[in-house]
């Protein structure tokens, strides 16, 4: 999806003002299969670029979520607590955490849509 930033570990960040919405890509949900649980941080937690902030779980396995950006978690997507399968239905609409971006320069280290498409070919 155009306009988003992508990490090598298949998370995306959609930037709106000083906030970033972080989720997993459509490619990632496809690879994972049915998502049955999303482990999320608490509001107010600090996340760090490249570090684990939670996990998405399929029936068989848990995959760590790595934050593409640093900052404070200002909101978690509470809808995923009861309906983790929303990620399979639309991974880009169903972000996992909203982060107050600490350093927008971190975005430069991420891929754009074209580069991510190339990386997942």
């Amino acid at each position, binding site marked *: 999806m155009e306009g988003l930033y992508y990490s090598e570990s298949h998370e995306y960040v959609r930037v709106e003002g000083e906030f970033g919405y972080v989720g997993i890509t459509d490619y990632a949900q496809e690879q994972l299969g*049915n998502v049955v649980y999303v*482990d999320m941080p608490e509001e107010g937690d600090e996340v760090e670029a490249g570090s684990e902030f939670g996990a998405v779980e399929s*029936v068989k396995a848990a995959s760590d979520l790595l934050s593409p950006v640093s900052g404070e978690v200002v909101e978690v997507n509470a809808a995923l607590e009861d309906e983790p399968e929303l990620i399979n239905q639309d991974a880009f609409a169903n972000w996992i955490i909203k982060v107050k971006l600490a350093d927008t320069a971190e975005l430069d280290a991420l891929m754009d849509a074209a580069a991510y498409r190339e990386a997942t070919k």
Partner: protein
Amino acid sequence: MSEKRTCLYDRHVALGAKMVPFGGFEMPIQYTDITSEHQAVRGACGVFDVSHMGEVLVTGPEAERFVQYIFTNDISGAPVGKIFYGMMLHPHGGTIDDLLVYKMGEEKFFLVINAANIDKDYAWISQQAEAFDVTTENQSDYYGQLAVQGPEAEKVTEEVLGLACQELAFYTFKLIEVEGETLIVSRTGYTGEDGFEIYGSHAYIQAAWDKLIDSGRAKPCGLGCRDTLRFEVGLPLYGDELTDEISPIMAGLGMFVKLDKAEFIGKEAVAKQKAEGVAKKIIGIELEGRAIPRHGYEVVADDKVIGEVTTGYCSISTGKSVCMALVDAAYAKLDTPVQVRIHRKLQPGKVVKKRFYDKHYKQ
């Protein structure tokens, strides 16, 4: 290490299965997704390639005495056609493998063992057999095997494969002659549903698989749902709930260990465990939340680690987060509050029965 392939490998790949290494074989973990394959077996019929399982034939005048000596269950006085579940034990009581014994004749027994243990088991069986007037033969490379499982398994096996199996009782088998070979067909399985396991040549198994898939009446099912299905009904998996260190008594499978029969390897050790109790036990745990316990996660009570998860899932049939775990026996009582450490957080739960979903066998 290069994995072996079963006779159905090409068919799995053609169906788009996700292949993973398991027990020394490249096996399909899923064709579509684990949940729908699981539900097909609970609700209708699924077919599994279980050709990776090992088979050992034991024959000779002392065959029964020999099997009794290496096997925990009591096969004495059984009619031909009967099947027994039990274990082979180390002298210290730990489990070498869990297996099925098919009584094919007064001097002929067919042992079905786990894929990952074929070499270990056959070496053990051969070594023990030296003291007996028996012949052992590892037939694992000859046999392919299908498991047809689910409430419609009987109809599908009869109508699609033309195998008359209706009269078979649970845990019995018969030999069926087809196209110049003899199949072994048993009413057994590893899903908690009614079903059949069919052993035959690679050519027969390939043709039977094609018939089942082409009929549309048996959904191809991978090892992913085989594990979720067996787990929900509390069946152990060797490597998780039974290991070289975990005895059947620790695993809560004492009913398959007959202490009133003659000498068998490991008897003294398990008799002592039964009499004096065990230090660790396999229990069931149900968590309050939705976080999923996985193999190896710590189980905590009274602020200390009391054991670890052996298998855990969000149960597909009940939607609950549940697991089996090996813990200090002091915490094994039903309703004991325990916690599982999941992603650094302690998730509260309690000890429950290991059967998270009721079996639906046809007796």
